[in-house]
Protein backbone atom coordinates (compact mmCIF):
# COMPACT_ATOMS: atom_id res chain seq x y z
CA UNK A 1 0.00 0.00 0.00
CA UNK A 2 1.26 3.48 -0.84
CA UNK A 3 -0.57 6.49 0.50
CA UNK A 4 -0.01 9.93 -1.00
CA UNK A 5 -1.36 13.19 0.31
CA UNK A 6 -2.66 15.52 -2.43
CA UNK A 7 -4.78 17.80 -0.25
CA UNK A 8 -4.49 18.10 3.53
CA UNK A 9 -6.54 21.19 4.41
CA UNK A 10 -10.09 21.41 5.65
CA UNK A 11 -12.89 23.88 4.97
CA UNK A 12 -11.28 25.78 2.14
CA UNK A 13 -8.02 25.66 0.19
CA UNK A 14 -5.49 27.90 1.89
CA UNK A 15 -2.15 28.38 0.15
CA UNK A 16 0.75 29.84 2.10
CA UNK A 17 0.80 33.62 1.99
CA UNK A 18 3.66 35.73 0.69
CA UNK A 19 4.30 36.81 4.27
CA UNK A 20 4.65 33.20 5.39
CA UNK A 21 7.05 32.39 2.54
CA UNK A 22 9.12 35.48 3.36
CA UNK A 23 9.28 34.43 6.98
CA UNK A 24 10.55 30.96 5.97
CA UNK A 25 13.19 32.48 3.72
CA UNK A 26 14.44 34.63 6.60
CA UNK A 27 14.63 31.62 8.93
CA UNK A 28 16.53 29.65 6.30
CA UNK A 29 18.99 32.45 5.65
CA UNK A 30 19.62 32.92 9.37
CA UNK A 31 20.26 29.20 9.63
CA UNK A 32 22.66 29.34 6.67
CA UNK A 33 25.01 31.67 8.48
CA UNK A 34 28.48 30.10 8.34
CA UNK A 35 27.40 27.35 5.95
CA UNK A 36 29.44 26.94 2.78
CA UNK A 37 27.04 27.49 -0.12
CA UNK A 38 29.55 28.13 -2.85
CA UNK A 39 28.44 25.43 -5.27
CA UNK A 40 25.15 23.90 -6.37
CA UNK A 41 25.79 20.60 -4.61
CA UNK A 42 26.37 22.39 -1.33
CA UNK A 43 23.16 24.36 -1.79
CA UNK A 44 21.24 21.16 -2.60
CA UNK A 45 22.64 19.44 0.48
CA UNK A 46 21.75 22.37 2.69
CA UNK A 47 18.18 22.60 1.40
CA UNK A 48 17.73 18.82 1.71
CA UNK A 49 18.79 19.03 5.34
CA UNK A 50 16.04 21.51 6.21
CA UNK A 51 12.88 20.39 8.01
CA UNK A 52 9.99 19.67 5.59
CA UNK A 53 7.92 22.66 6.70
CA UNK A 54 10.84 25.03 6.31
CA UNK A 55 12.00 23.82 2.90
CA UNK A 56 8.40 23.38 1.78
CA UNK A 57 4.82 23.87 2.86
CA UNK A 58 2.17 21.75 4.54
CA UNK A 59 0.04 22.53 1.53
CA UNK A 60 -3.09 24.48 0.76
CA UNK A 61 -5.26 22.06 -1.20
CA UNK A 62 -8.35 20.64 0.46
CA UNK A 63 -8.81 16.96 1.27
CA UNK A 64 -7.63 14.32 -1.16
CA UNK A 65 -5.67 11.19 -0.31
CA UNK A 66 -4.54 8.56 -2.80
CA UNK A 67 -4.05 4.89 -1.92
CA UNK A 68 -2.23 2.71 -4.44
CA UNK A 69 -2.58 -1.03 -4.11
CA UNK A 70 -0.52 -2.48 -6.95
CA UNK A 71 -2.21 -1.01 -10.06
CA UNK A 72 -5.43 0.01 -8.32
CA UNK A 73 -6.11 3.67 -7.64
CA UNK A 74 -8.19 4.44 -4.55
CA UNK A 75 -8.92 8.10 -3.97
CA UNK A 76 -10.38 9.37 -0.71
CA UNK A 77 -12.26 12.61 -1.15
CA UNK A 78 -12.21 14.95 -4.11
CA UNK A 79 -11.17 18.23 -2.58
CA UNK A 80 -9.04 20.65 -4.60
CA UNK A 81 -6.11 18.24 -4.19
CA UNK A 82 -7.68 15.91 -6.72
CA UNK A 83 -6.72 18.36 -9.45
CA UNK A 84 -2.93 17.83 -9.19
CA UNK A 85 -3.57 14.13 -8.62
CA UNK A 86 -5.48 14.08 -11.90
CA UNK A 87 -2.58 15.79 -13.64
CA UNK A 88 -0.26 13.08 -12.38
CA UNK A 89 -2.65 10.34 -13.49
CA UNK A 90 -2.80 11.90 -16.95
CA UNK A 91 0.89 11.02 -17.30
CA UNK A 92 -0.19 7.39 -17.12
CA UNK A 93 -2.89 5.23 -18.69
CA UNK A 94 -5.61 7.77 -17.93
CA UNK A 95 -4.52 9.98 -20.83
CA UNK A 96 -5.38 7.12 -23.19
CA UNK A 97 -8.76 6.40 -21.68
CA UNK A 98 -7.53 3.16 -20.12
CA UNK A 99 -7.60 4.19 -16.48
CA UNK A 100 -9.86 3.15 -13.60
CA UNK A 101 -10.20 5.25 -10.46
CA UNK A 102 -12.13 4.38 -7.30
CA UNK A 103 -13.22 7.56 -5.53
CA UNK A 104 -14.51 7.19 -1.97
CA UNK A 105 -16.43 10.10 -0.51
CA UNK A 106 -16.95 10.33 3.24
CA UNK A 107 -19.42 13.16 2.83
CA UNK A 108 -20.13 15.87 0.30
CA UNK A 109 -19.27 19.09 2.08
CA UNK A 110 -17.79 21.46 -0.43
CA UNK A 111 -14.15 21.10 0.59
CA UNK A 112 -14.36 17.36 -0.09
CA UNK A 113 -15.88 17.52 -3.59
CA UNK A 114 -14.80 20.88 -5.01
CA UNK A 115 -11.91 19.46 -7.01
CA UNK A 116 -13.85 16.95 -9.08
CA UNK A 117 -14.82 19.38 -11.90
CA UNK A 118 -11.07 19.84 -12.40
CA UNK A 119 -10.20 16.14 -12.37
CA UNK A 120 -8.74 15.76 -15.87
CA UNK A 121 -9.10 11.95 -16.17
CA UNK A 122 -12.90 12.42 -15.89
CA UNK A 123 -12.89 14.24 -19.23
CA UNK A 124 -11.22 11.43 -21.18
CA UNK A 125 -13.55 8.92 -22.84
CA UNK A 126 -12.86 5.34 -21.87
CA UNK A 127 -11.70 6.07 -18.34
CA UNK A 128 -13.80 4.42 -15.62
CA UNK A 129 -14.57 6.56 -12.58
CA UNK A 130 -16.22 4.62 -9.75
CA UNK A 131 -17.75 6.66 -6.93
CA UNK A 132 -18.42 5.03 -3.57
CA UNK A 133 -20.30 6.41 -0.60
CA UNK A 134 -23.02 5.54 1.90
CA UNK A 135 -25.32 8.19 0.42
CA UNK A 136 -27.91 6.86 -2.02
CA UNK A 137 -28.16 10.27 -3.69
CA UNK A 138 -24.45 10.77 -4.37
CA UNK A 139 -24.86 11.26 -8.11
CA UNK A 140 -27.35 14.05 -7.47
CA UNK A 141 -25.02 15.66 -4.92
CA UNK A 142 -22.10 15.62 -7.37
CA UNK A 143 -24.30 16.85 -10.23
CA UNK A 144 -25.47 19.78 -8.09
CA UNK A 145 -21.93 21.09 -8.08
CA UNK A 146 -22.04 21.17 -11.88
CA UNK A 147 -25.24 23.19 -11.98
CA UNK A 148 -24.61 25.93 -14.58
CA UNK A 149 -25.14 28.53 -11.87
CA UNK A 150 -22.01 27.19 -10.16
CA UNK A 151 -19.86 25.66 -12.91
CA UNK A 152 -19.94 25.88 -16.70
CA UNK A 153 -19.38 22.18 -17.44
CA UNK A 154 -22.23 19.78 -16.67
CA UNK A 155 -21.41 16.42 -15.08
CA UNK A 156 -22.68 14.65 -18.22
CA UNK A 157 -20.13 16.46 -20.34
CA UNK A 158 -17.28 14.81 -18.46
CA UNK A 159 -16.72 12.03 -20.97
CA UNK A 160 -15.37 9.26 -18.75
CA UNK A 161 -17.79 6.53 -17.68
CA UNK A 162 -19.04 7.33 -14.21
CA UNK A 163 -20.45 4.68 -11.90
CA UNK A 164 -22.10 5.43 -8.56
CA UNK A 165 -22.07 2.72 -5.90
CA UNK A 166 -23.91 2.94 -2.58
CA UNK A 167 -22.13 1.09 0.18
CA UNK A 168 -23.74 -0.32 3.31
CA UNK A 169 -22.09 0.97 6.50
CA UNK A 170 -20.53 -1.59 8.84
CA UNK A 171 -20.46 -4.19 6.05
CA UNK A 172 -17.37 -5.41 4.17
CA UNK A 173 -17.16 -4.63 0.46
CA UNK A 174 -14.67 -6.26 -1.93
CA UNK A 175 -13.37 -3.52 -4.22
CA UNK A 176 -10.42 -3.80 -6.61
CA UNK A 177 -8.80 -6.55 -4.55
CA UNK A 178 -9.20 -4.87 -1.16
CA UNK A 179 -11.80 -5.21 1.58
CA UNK A 180 -13.42 -1.89 2.44
CA UNK A 181 -15.49 -1.25 5.56
CA UNK A 182 -17.35 2.07 5.63
CA UNK A 183 -18.26 3.22 9.14
CA UNK A 184 -20.39 6.10 10.41
CA UNK A 185 -18.77 9.10 12.10
CA UNK A 186 -20.08 12.19 13.87
CA UNK A 187 -20.18 15.21 11.59
CA UNK A 188 -23.00 17.62 10.74
CA UNK A 189 -25.01 16.06 7.90
CA UNK A 190 -23.36 12.68 8.51
CA UNK A 191 -20.00 11.37 7.37
CA UNK A 192 -18.36 8.01 6.90
CA UNK A 193 -14.85 6.77 7.30
CA UNK A 194 -13.24 3.91 5.44
CA UNK A 195 -11.17 1.01 6.68
CA UNK A 196 -9.26 -0.71 3.88
CA UNK A 197 -7.63 -4.10 4.39
CA UNK A 198 -5.29 -5.75 1.93
CA UNK A 199 -2.67 -8.42 2.35
CA UNK A 200 -2.50 -8.02 6.12
CA UNK A 201 -2.19 -4.21 6.00
CA UNK A 202 -4.80 -1.78 7.24
CA UNK A 203 -5.36 1.79 6.11
CA UNK A 204 -8.08 3.94 7.71
CA UNK A 205 -9.33 7.25 6.38
CA UNK A 206 -11.44 9.14 8.92
CA UNK A 207 -12.39 12.62 7.83
CA UNK A 208 -14.44 14.51 8.78
CA UNK A 209 -15.20 13.43 12.32
CA UNK A 210 -15.40 14.75 15.86
CA UNK A 211 -15.30 11.42 17.68
CA UNK A 212 -17.77 12.99 20.06
CA UNK A 213 -17.89 9.76 21.96
CA UNK A 214 -14.87 7.55 22.07
CA UNK A 215 -16.36 4.34 23.34
CA UNK A 216 -15.05 1.17 21.81
CA UNK A 217 -18.03 0.79 19.47
CA UNK A 218 -17.18 4.19 17.95
CA UNK A 219 -13.51 3.53 17.40
CA UNK A 220 -13.29 -0.18 16.64
CA UNK A 221 -12.75 0.32 12.91
CA UNK A 222 -9.46 2.00 13.69
CA UNK A 223 -8.10 -1.08 15.45
CA UNK A 224 -4.55 -2.05 14.51
CA UNK A 225 -4.45 0.39 11.60
CA UNK A 226 -1.01 0.60 10.03
CA UNK A 227 -1.89 4.16 9.06
CA UNK A 228 -4.79 6.23 10.37
CA UNK A 229 -5.45 9.49 8.52
CA UNK A 230 -7.57 11.42 10.98
CA UNK A 231 -9.32 14.78 10.94
CA UNK A 232 -7.51 16.63 13.75
CA UNK A 233 -8.49 20.08 12.63
CA UNK A 234 -8.48 22.00 15.88
CA UNK A 235 -6.13 22.25 18.82
CA UNK A 236 -7.60 20.53 21.86
CA UNK A 237 -8.49 23.84 23.50
CA UNK A 238 -10.16 25.15 20.37
CA UNK A 239 -12.10 21.90 19.94
CA UNK A 240 -13.50 22.29 23.47
CA UNK A 241 -15.15 25.53 22.37
CA UNK A 242 -16.37 24.03 19.08
CA UNK A 243 -18.40 21.09 20.31
CA UNK A 244 -20.66 19.67 17.60
CA UNK A 245 -18.68 21.33 14.82
CA UNK A 246 -17.72 17.85 13.68
CA UNK A 247 -13.93 17.92 13.96
CA UNK A 248 -11.42 16.23 16.21
CA UNK A 249 -8.14 17.33 17.78
CA UNK A 250 -4.64 15.75 17.84
CA UNK A 251 -4.74 14.86 21.55
CA UNK A 252 -8.04 13.00 21.17
CA UNK A 253 -6.56 11.37 18.08
CA UNK A 254 -3.61 10.14 20.13
CA UNK A 255 -5.87 8.76 22.85
CA UNK A 256 -7.89 6.85 20.29
CA UNK A 257 -4.82 5.68 18.40
CA UNK A 258 -3.24 4.38 21.62
CA UNK A 259 -6.45 2.62 22.65
CA UNK A 260 -6.84 0.99 19.23
CA UNK A 261 -3.15 0.10 18.82
CA UNK A 262 -2.72 2.18 15.69
CA UNK A 263 0.85 2.12 14.39
CA UNK A 264 1.01 5.47 12.62
CA UNK A 265 -1.29 8.48 13.03
CA UNK A 266 -1.38 11.22 10.40
CA UNK A 267 -2.78 14.54 11.59
CA UNK A 268 -5.00 15.71 8.74
CA UNK A 269 -7.63 18.24 7.61
CA UNK A 270 -5.63 21.20 8.89
CA UNK A 271 -7.50 24.32 9.92
CA UNK A 272 -6.98 26.89 7.11
CA UNK A 273 -5.96 29.64 9.53
CA UNK A 274 -3.11 27.58 11.00
CA UNK A 275 0.14 28.52 9.30
CA UNK A 276 3.03 26.08 9.04
CA UNK A 277 4.70 27.32 12.25
CA UNK A 278 1.54 26.58 14.18
CA UNK A 279 1.27 23.14 12.56
CA UNK A 280 4.90 22.40 13.48
CA UNK A 281 4.28 23.37 17.10
CA UNK A 282 1.05 21.37 17.14
CA UNK A 283 2.93 18.28 15.95
CA UNK A 284 5.64 18.75 18.60
CA UNK A 285 3.06 19.22 21.33
CA UNK A 286 1.15 16.16 20.17
CA UNK A 287 4.27 14.00 20.22
CA UNK A 288 5.04 15.26 23.77
CA UNK A 289 1.47 14.43 24.78
CA UNK A 290 1.83 10.91 23.43
CA UNK A 291 5.12 10.48 25.33
CA UNK A 292 3.37 11.55 28.53
CA UNK A 293 0.40 9.28 27.97
CA UNK A 294 2.31 6.17 26.91
CA UNK A 295 6.09 6.43 26.58
CA UNK A 296 6.32 2.70 25.84
CA UNK A 297 4.03 2.88 22.83
CA UNK A 298 5.61 2.74 19.38
CA UNK A 299 2.84 4.92 17.94
CA UNK A 300 4.34 7.24 15.36
CA UNK A 301 2.72 10.60 14.74
CA UNK A 302 3.19 12.54 11.51
CA UNK A 303 1.72 15.69 10.06
CA UNK A 304 0.00 15.10 6.72
CA UNK A 305 1.92 17.19 4.20
CA UNK A 306 0.95 17.70 0.58
CA UNK A 307 3.24 15.70 -1.67
CA UNK A 308 4.23 13.26 1.04
CA UNK A 309 3.99 9.49 0.48
CA UNK A 310 3.79 6.79 3.13
CA UNK A 311 4.46 3.14 2.26
CA UNK A 312 2.93 0.35 4.33
Amino acid at each position, binding site marked *: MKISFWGVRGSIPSPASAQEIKSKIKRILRGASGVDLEDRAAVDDFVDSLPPLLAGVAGGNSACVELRIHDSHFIFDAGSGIRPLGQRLMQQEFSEGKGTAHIFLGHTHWDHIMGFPFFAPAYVPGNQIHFYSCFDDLEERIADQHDPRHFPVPLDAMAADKHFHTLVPDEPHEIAGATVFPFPMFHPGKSFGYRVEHDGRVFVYASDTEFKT*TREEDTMYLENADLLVLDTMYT*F*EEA*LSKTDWGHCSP*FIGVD*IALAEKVKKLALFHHEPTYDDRKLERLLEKTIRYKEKMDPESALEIILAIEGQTVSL
Partner: protein
Amino acid sequence: MRGGDTVIFLEGVINERTELNGIFKDIDTGTLIINLKGVTRINSCGVRDWVNAAKPLAGKFRIIYEHCSRAIVEQLNMIVNFLNSGTIVSFYAPYYCDACEAEHEMLLDIAQHFTDSADSDEPEAPDFDCPQCGKTMEFNEDEDKYLSFLTE
Protein backbone atom coordinates in the same frame (compact mmCIF):
# COMPACT_ATOMS: atom_id res chain seq x y z
CA MET B 1 -19.62 16.96 53.63
CA ARG B 2 -17.07 19.29 55.13
CA GLY B 3 -18.47 22.16 57.16
CA GLY B 4 -21.48 22.53 54.91
CA ASP B 5 -19.53 22.09 51.68
CA THR B 6 -19.87 18.99 49.53
CA VAL B 7 -16.69 17.00 48.91
CA ILE B 8 -16.30 14.54 46.04
CA PHE B 9 -13.32 12.20 45.85
CA LEU B 10 -12.34 11.04 42.35
CA GLU B 11 -10.07 8.04 42.00
CA GLY B 12 -8.53 5.91 39.30
CA VAL B 13 -8.46 6.49 35.57
CA ILE B 14 -10.52 9.13 33.79
CA ASN B 15 -10.66 8.38 30.08
CA GLU B 16 -13.05 7.76 27.20
CA ARG B 17 -14.63 4.85 29.09
CA THR B 18 -15.44 6.89 32.23
CA GLU B 19 -19.02 7.92 32.87
CA LEU B 20 -18.86 11.45 34.23
CA ASN B 21 -22.37 12.69 33.52
CA GLY B 22 -23.93 11.54 36.76
CA ILE B 23 -21.24 12.83 39.12
CA PHE B 24 -22.65 16.30 39.63
CA LYS B 25 -26.26 15.33 39.50
CA ASP B 26 -28.44 16.39 42.42
CA ILE B 27 -25.69 18.38 44.11
CA ASP B 28 -27.09 21.23 46.13
CA THR B 29 -24.34 23.13 47.84
CA GLY B 30 -22.66 26.48 48.11
CA THR B 31 -19.20 25.14 47.48
CA LEU B 32 -18.24 21.88 45.79
CA ILE B 33 -14.80 20.56 46.69
CA ILE B 34 -13.36 18.01 44.28
CA ASN B 35 -10.47 16.00 45.67
CA LEU B 36 -8.26 14.67 42.87
CA LYS B 37 -5.58 12.90 44.90
CA GLY B 38 -6.64 9.49 43.72
CA VAL B 39 -6.68 10.22 39.98
CA THR B 40 -3.90 8.10 38.58
CA ARG B 41 -4.37 8.91 34.92
CA ILE B 42 -6.46 11.23 32.79
CA ASN B 43 -6.20 11.56 29.06
CA SER B 44 -7.58 14.22 26.74
CA CYS B 45 -10.82 12.29 26.22
CA GLY B 46 -11.25 12.33 29.98
CA VAL B 47 -10.45 16.04 30.10
CA ARG B 48 -12.96 16.77 27.36
CA ASP B 49 -15.68 14.78 29.07
CA TRP B 50 -14.80 16.46 32.36
CA VAL B 51 -15.05 19.95 30.87
CA ASN B 52 -18.40 19.09 29.30
CA ALA B 53 -19.73 17.58 32.54
CA ALA B 54 -18.61 20.64 34.52
CA LYS B 55 -20.03 23.23 32.07
CA PRO B 56 -23.58 23.16 33.45
CA LEU B 57 -22.19 23.89 36.93
CA ALA B 58 -20.92 27.32 35.97
CA GLY B 59 -22.55 29.87 38.21
CA LYS B 60 -24.47 27.27 40.22
CA PHE B 61 -21.89 26.90 42.94
CA ARG B 62 -18.25 27.55 43.67
CA ILE B 63 -15.88 24.72 42.71
CA ILE B 64 -12.58 24.06 44.42
CA TYR B 65 -10.05 21.53 43.18
CA GLU B 66 -7.81 20.20 45.92
CA HIS B 67 -4.99 17.69 46.17
CA CYS B 68 -4.52 17.52 42.40
CA SER B 69 -2.48 14.43 41.60
CA ARG B 70 0.57 14.45 39.34
CA ALA B 71 -1.56 13.08 36.51
CA ILE B 72 -3.85 16.09 36.86
CA VAL B 73 -0.92 18.52 37.00
CA GLU B 74 0.50 17.03 33.80
CA GLN B 75 -2.74 17.74 31.98
CA LEU B 76 -2.94 21.21 33.53
CA ASN B 77 0.39 21.93 31.91
CA MET B 78 -0.61 20.46 28.54
CA ILE B 79 -4.09 21.87 28.23
CA VAL B 80 -4.81 25.53 28.79
CA ASN B 81 -7.69 26.20 31.18
CA PHE B 82 -8.41 22.55 31.84
CA LEU B 83 -9.82 23.26 35.29
CA ASN B 84 -10.91 26.83 34.76
CA SER B 85 -14.39 25.88 35.94
CA GLY B 86 -13.04 26.21 39.47
CA THR B 87 -10.12 27.24 41.65
CA ILE B 88 -7.13 25.01 42.22
CA VAL B 89 -5.99 25.25 45.84
CA SER B 90 -3.47 22.43 46.21
CA PHE B 91 -1.53 19.84 44.24
CA TYR B 92 1.06 17.11 44.65
CA ALA B 93 4.63 17.39 43.42
CA PRO B 94 7.49 14.90 43.49
CA TYR B 95 10.48 15.45 45.78
CA TYR B 96 13.55 13.27 46.04
CA CYS B 97 15.62 12.48 49.12
CA ASP B 98 19.25 11.73 48.20
CA ALA B 99 19.93 10.21 51.59
CA CYS B 100 17.08 7.73 51.45
CA GLU B 101 17.19 7.42 47.65
CA ALA B 102 13.42 7.65 47.66
CA GLU B 103 10.83 9.87 46.05
CA HIS B 104 8.00 11.36 48.05
CA GLU B 105 4.92 13.15 46.79
CA MET B 106 4.40 16.31 48.80
CA LEU B 107 1.26 18.39 48.98
CA LEU B 108 1.72 22.00 47.94
CA ASP B 109 -0.86 24.55 49.05
CA ILE B 110 -0.99 27.38 46.56
CA ALA B 111 -1.99 30.09 49.05
CA GLN B 112 0.59 28.97 51.58
CA HIS B 113 3.56 28.06 49.39
CA PHE B 114 3.30 30.48 46.51
CA THR B 115 2.24 33.74 48.15
CA ASP B 116 5.66 35.32 47.61
CA SER B 117 5.78 34.39 43.97
CA ALA B 118 2.11 35.13 43.29
CA ASP B 119 2.89 37.70 40.59
CA SER B 120 5.99 36.01 39.29
CA ASP B 121 6.39 34.36 35.90
CA GLU B 122 8.68 31.81 37.55
CA PRO B 123 7.11 30.38 40.69
CA GLU B 124 9.54 28.55 42.94
CA ALA B 125 8.86 25.23 44.55
CA PRO B 126 9.11 25.33 48.36
CA ASP B 127 11.59 23.22 50.33
CA PHE B 128 10.45 20.07 52.09
CA ASP B 129 12.22 17.80 54.55
CA CYS B 130 12.19 14.08 53.96
CA PRO B 131 9.41 12.55 56.05
CA GLN B 132 11.71 9.61 56.81
CA CYS B 133 15.13 11.06 57.59
CA GLY B 134 14.42 14.78 57.93
CA LYS B 135 16.99 15.88 55.34
CA THR B 136 16.07 18.53 52.78
CA MET B 137 14.72 17.06 49.57
CA GLU B 138 15.12 18.17 45.95
CA PHE B 139 12.21 19.01 43.70
CA ASN B 140 12.16 16.04 41.36
CA GLU B 141 10.72 17.55 38.19
CA ASP B 142 11.62 20.36 35.81
CA GLU B 143 10.41 23.17 38.06
CA ASP B 144 9.57 25.61 35.27
CA LYS B 145 7.53 23.04 33.36
CA TYR B 146 5.80 21.42 36.34
CA LEU B 147 4.73 24.73 37.84
CA SER B 148 3.90 26.47 34.56
CA PHE B 149 0.14 26.06 35.10
CA LEU B 150 0.43 28.45 38.06
CA THR B 151 1.39 31.29 35.74
CA GLU B 152 -1.64 30.99 33.45
